[in-house]
């Protein structure tokens, strides 16, 4: 948490730009969750914990097995993608016909499992990968390369997903199945296969987020709690399953956190963001981009 709070400095413009940079990362996290929700109609409460496992993966590959960062990152993305597919196969698939609440709660159980697994396997110490990227000084403002890199990589990741969804056959099939779950199997589409692919893709996005987050923050078993709730809020504010809404909401939230943190403690930035969220629930209950009934 503390690390997350150290992001911001005193200057307004710097805060605004840092907000944009943070927004990129949040948008990436929200995208994975939105993808899963939009296609499979399931909310992974444990999404942030997948990211946490990915961060541990990075830590072990870099600090213990001494792999360079660029070699560790693809491995971790693959690992978390497999984890996502396994999560779907083991937990979600048996519950596909159960009430949605049960699916949601089952992933809540997985949250417990992953957190305590990390506690048991890795201990509760804070760990970091030991990579300190330089800081870019631009006039009076300072930006860390870690944050610029995450922003750029998030954008690349999001564009990649967009291209995959619009330009490939599988992506088109995934979009089709999210529009009509009943008809697509009748058209000869293997829904189970598509669900597994989507889950793996969601996992891969979590893995990518993990590779980027580990540059900026220490990892510990409960790190997921520091950005998990905010990711859910972003998805709800943007409209669950609405990619563009989630993208915009991520930046709105990041700016509120960033600017709120500028005027007082960063925790108050979070409180402000939460309060804003509740107010938005009154004004636009179905998400930012939803049409009013």
């Amino acid at each position, binding site marked *: *948490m503390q690390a997350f709070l150290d992001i911001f400095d005193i200057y307004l413009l710097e805060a605004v730009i840092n907000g944009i940079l943070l927004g990129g990362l949040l948008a990436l996290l929200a995208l994975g969750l939105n993808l899963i929700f939009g296609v499979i109609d399931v909310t992974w409460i444990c999404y942030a914990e997948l990211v946490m496992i990915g961060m541990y993966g990075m830590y072990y590959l870099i600090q213990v097995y001494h792999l360079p960062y660029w070699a560790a990152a693809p491995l971790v993305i693959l690992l978390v993608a497999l984890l996502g597919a396994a999560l779907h196969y083991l937990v979600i698939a048996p519950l596909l016909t159960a009430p949605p609440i*049960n699916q949601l*709660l089952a992933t*809540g159980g*997985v*949250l417990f499992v992953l957190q305590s697994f990390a506690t048991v396997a890795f201990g509760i110490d804070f760990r970091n990968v030991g990579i300190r990227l330089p800081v870019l000084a631009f006039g009076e403002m300072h930006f860390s390369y870690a944050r610029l890199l995450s922003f750029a990589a998030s954008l690349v990741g999001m564009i990649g997903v967009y291209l995959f969804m619009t330009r490939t056959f599988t992506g088109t099939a995934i979009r089709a199945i999210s529009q009509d779950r009943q008809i697509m199997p009748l058209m000869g589409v293997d829904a189970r296969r598509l669900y597994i692919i989507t889950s793996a893709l969601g996992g891969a996005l979590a893995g990518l987020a993990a590779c980027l987050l580990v540059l900026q923050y220490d990892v510990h078993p409960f790190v997921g709690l520091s950005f998990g709730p905010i990711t859910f809020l972003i998805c709800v504010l943007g409209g*669950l399953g609405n990619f563009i809404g989630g993208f915009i909401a991520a930046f709105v939230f990041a700016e509120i956190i960033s600017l709120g943190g500028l005027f007082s403690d960063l925790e108050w930035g979070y409180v402000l963001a939460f309060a804003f969220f*509740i107010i938005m*629930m009154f004004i636009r*209950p179905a998400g930012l981009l939803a049409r009013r009934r």
Partner: protein
Amino acid sequence: MTPRYAMAIAGAAAMIALPFVHRDAYHLHILVLILIWSFAYTSWSIMGRFGLVSLGHGGFMGVGAYVTALLWNHLEVSPWIGIPASMAAAGVLALVVGYPCFRFRITGHYFVLVTLALSGIVLQVITATRDYTGGSLGYTPNRATGSRWLALQFDDKTTWYFIALSVWLVGLLVWRRIDRSMGRYAMEAISEDEDAAAAAGVNVTAEKLKITLISALMTAFAGALYCQYQMFISPDTVSGISVSLQMVFAAIVGGLYVSLGPTVGAVITILSAEGLRIGFGANAVGWDNLVYGVLLVLFIIFLPKGILGSVVEKVKARRMPSLKS
């Protein structure tokens, strides 16, 4: 007097007699914890059984515990006033969050995530106001200098056992009262189909708010009681998402749709947590939750009605074979 009544009275008598027969402090401590948490889980299930799955109850519990303790430490307000005040605060919070949710038909995933945000907010506020609340290091109510009754602080486990027992019984009575009320049918209709319920003359928003308010007040009370009993609270033990999830899971493991279900859930979860803690000794950090989490996933997949719920169903089916379809 039906056999059911006789059993209930015999059970109550046995529970009242227990501390006079068995005076082991550790066992009593576990029992008190089970009773307090059972009460909290029961309050959650009052709402949860109608499909209103809230992950915000950690927030209500945190408000209950912290408002009581803060009023006592900073303003020297007795918990006798502090507890109702904290319940009122939780009630207001429930209404502020509940009203837009119910008015604008936020259900299912959305409702869960909004309430999740609520427990997130409470946790953040407690951590952010660390000058008053001690932040994540936790908080201890001051020891009473004057009357113990006025401060609601007792060192005696037996006293606490009776307090917790009576509170738990009240919780069960509230559960039963709702189970027998018109509100239950209204809520069941709402959970089936909101529009149809509204068309049949059910005031959807008002009914949902009512049930949410009752549930939030009881949860805040449980939080305040826990604070008074343990004399130490930290954001992780009384508020936040993990506490909310814990409530949901215990209620589901025990069984949502029977009155003693959450209690059975509390017995199972607390005993297994204690058992694992003792069994694994000092290496237990995390193991208990690991087993716990796996069990919960398995429960939700294979036994969604919970242990007690499934047993009751089996017994009923055997008694009335015609209902088995």
